[in-house]
């Protein structure tokens, strides 16, 4: 990694890569803020939860569980299950963060989300992405999340639903992030296997554990195919 670029340039690079995430977070954040406010959370509590937890889907689940009067230990357990998928993301990122100190990893880990993970991973792989650029992506996304949830709690009901197709922002972003990952036939096959498994499992299993199960199975299926294909090639080579 080069250390020649000044910090300002690195932060600029991170912001340039991270702004689409902010757009994607806004409708979600507003929706969460509205829901949380209706469930009786104060603005400060909404902001604090977004800042401390920073995990959209589990925050939605937590607030709806609070509404149903479910006790905090159970909510915390559910949060753990929902966010366990980050283990896979951090494992993939770890390869590119070899040269960073463990001190750097403490704030970095905090910002690992579905979105920042996918952006940073693609950049690490395809460019000389600096860890500070990656950290900036995490932090601008975090800021957008906190701000949008608080705005939602303050007066999100005044923003018309479906405003300019903003509900599709995250979907479009994930489509592009998926495209970045399609670097060959084996990746396309893995995507189709994992995606189809996720659709099937999502019908059967409540909650979003299907993401973890489908991605583990999908990646393993892709890996097995890769091995088989390689063995075949080697076999032909010897004959």
């Amino acid at each position, binding site marked *: 990694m080069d250390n020649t670029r000044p910090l300002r340039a690195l932060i600029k690079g991170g912001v340039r890569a991270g702004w689409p995430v902010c757009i994607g977070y806004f409708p979600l954040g507003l929706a969460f803020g509205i829901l949380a406010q209706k469930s009786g959370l104060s603005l400060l509590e909404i902001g604090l939860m977004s800042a401390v937890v920073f995990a959209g889907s589990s925050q939605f689940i937590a607030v709806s569980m609070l509404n149903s009067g479910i006790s905090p230990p159970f909510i915390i357990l559910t949060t753990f299950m929902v966010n366990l998928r980050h283990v896979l993301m951090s*494992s993939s990122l770890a390869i590119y963060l070899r040269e960073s100190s463990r001190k750097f*990893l403490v704030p970095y880990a905090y910002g690992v989300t579905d979105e920042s993970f996918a952006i940073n991973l693609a950049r690490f792989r395809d460019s000389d992405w600096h860890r500070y650029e990656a950290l900036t992506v995490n932090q601008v996304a975090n800021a957008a999340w906190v701000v949008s949830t608080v705005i939602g709690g303050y007066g999100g009901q005044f923003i018309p639903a479906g405003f300019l197709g903003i509900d599709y922002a995250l979907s479009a972003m994930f489509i592009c992030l998926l495209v970045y990952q399609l670097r060959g036939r084996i990746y396309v096959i893995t995507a189709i296997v994992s995606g189809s498994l996720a659709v099937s499992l999502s019908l059967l299993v409540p909650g979003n554990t299907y993401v973890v199960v489908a991605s583990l199975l999908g*990646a*393993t299926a892709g890996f097995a195919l890769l091995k088989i294909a390689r063995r075949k090639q080697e076999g032909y080579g010897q004959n």
Partner: protein
Amino acid sequence: MVRTDYLLLILGMGLVTYIPRWFPLFFLAKRRLPLWFVEWLDLVPVAILSALIFPDLFTADGPHRLVRLFQARSLVALPTFLFALKTRSLGGTVMVGMVLFWLAEKLFQG
């Protein structure tokens, strides 16, 4: 105003969310990983992303989740996908996807 029970809940949620994010970074970043594991990990991101996006595009929420292959979300996904493939621009793809979805919703409603 932050009530104590809510504060404890938020801190608990924060802790159990932080640990899975931090643990692999802390333990894997400094270790030499076996080749098979690196090759397997290389396939994990594409698997996660499609596991996130496929149900979003091809199922519909309701009292029960249903498979719905043809709906505004999935139909808009095709041109959005092609745009992303062609331009590789994240911001552009987000914009194009939003506008197309907005138009599609108008058409479906109209």
